[in-house]
């Protein structure tokens, strides 16, 4: 059975080789004329302030953690998925229950505002009131020039 994976190993090797070749050739035949200006990281033509190696917003990491939590749960379902009918109703209801729990987790995260990236960016918006024509058109008489 494992023999079936041989072509895949070959493919991975070839793919890696092709990638290395592509990167290698351009490094080899391309010109090299570095100068200090050129080597500064791009920041819209201005000097970068500090490096990009600083501490970063925690929200990205939260997403990464959620991914691990939920994706592992999804992976658990694969063995069931190939044998839905054979495993029968009890397992089906167990899976449904499991998914309900997962969904509650998602709902909890939603309520906690994990997916709410613009919580602080949102601004109140004045109501849109229908403008009457008189209000929309300014009064000419009010100012003298």
């Amino acid at each position: 059975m494992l023999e079936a994976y041989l072509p895949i190993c070959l493919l991975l090797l070839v793919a890696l080789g092709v990638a290395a070749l592509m990167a290698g050739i351009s490094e080899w035949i391309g010109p090299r004329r570095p100068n200090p200006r050129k080597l500064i990281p791009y920041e819209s033509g201005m000097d970068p302030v500090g490096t990009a190696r600083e501490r970063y917003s925690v929200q990205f990491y939260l997403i990464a953690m959620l991914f691990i939590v939920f994706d592992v749960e999804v992976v658990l379902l694969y063995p069931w998925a190939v044998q839905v009918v054979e495993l029968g109703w009890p397992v089906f209801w167990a899976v449904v229950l499991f998914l309900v729990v997962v969904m509650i987790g998602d709902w909890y995260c939603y309520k906690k505002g994990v997916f709410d990236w613009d919580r602080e960016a949102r601004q109140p918006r004045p109501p849109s009131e229908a403008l009457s024509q008189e209000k929309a058109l300014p009064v000419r008489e009010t100012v003298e020039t």
Partner: protein
Amino acid sequence: MAFESLQPKLLLLAAALLALFTMAAYTVYFERRISAWIQNRIGPNRVGPFGLLQPLADVLKLLFKEDIAPAAADRLLHRLAPMISVTAAVATIGVLPFAHNLILADVNIGILYILAITSLNVYGITLSGWASNSKYALLGGLRSSAQLISYEIAMGLAVLSVVVQSESLMTSQIVEAQAEIWNVLRNPLGFLIFLITAFAETNRLPFDLPEAEQELVAGYHTEYSSMKFGMFYVAEYMNVVLSSAVITTLFFGGYLVPFGHLFMSDLPAWARTGLEVLSFFGKTGFFVFVFIWVRWTIPRFKYNQLMRLGWVYLFPLAVLNLVLVALARMLF
């Protein structure tokens, strides 16, 4: 396994690689032609007849460009990142059935393999963003990693619903299970979810936030030049082709020829295989067109919209779809 039995596989491997690279290159060409057509322009038409040699010219140009790595970059990762992207893209073709019995490796966990390999792509992008040590690149890389992993869950669930229907993880059997009726008709919601997540996974508009050129200049590949930039470019288009191929395999009957059971059995074997390959690439081509078409019409999502769509709408919807599909499977 003896070498003799491996020989046809090697031939197939070479052919598949060639086909993939050509398709990726010509997807770039067609993208430019189709976008030109949408925008009332002409598009590339100078190199060769109808500009058909344009991809070749592009590659040659990129090869002869200066390869700049910023001084503050992490040299090793900076070099490695585009290679990971290309490798991950190329490796996906291993389990795609081009025709009956025409598959590189018909492994019993084909679908899992596809999911695993495509998620490697996130490393290429995140590492490139981090290694460049440029803030635009970093923002692009972070956005990208958050986006790719967010949509992977919904994608996994959509794939799961297909697995429930065909009761197999083998790509060839998933295709064969659609002989009577394509999965898109039995599982339309799953198809929609998969299509949306496929857009997100390939970083195409409206999900191209990681490289939103108006916001982040070029996103994660801001600091890449020469062929290394070209590699990200190639990887993106390969992913477009491969996503289309996976959509075809999972939902549109793969290599199965529409109404094939009416006439296919009378044909000689070579003709059958030929027709099946044609059918596979035809369907794939159609989805590549959809990818291009959407890209040139729709504005881009905002970050919070993207996250909300992924976690608050798609994820529960995908779970619901899975339960419904399983229920239908149990009942009928």
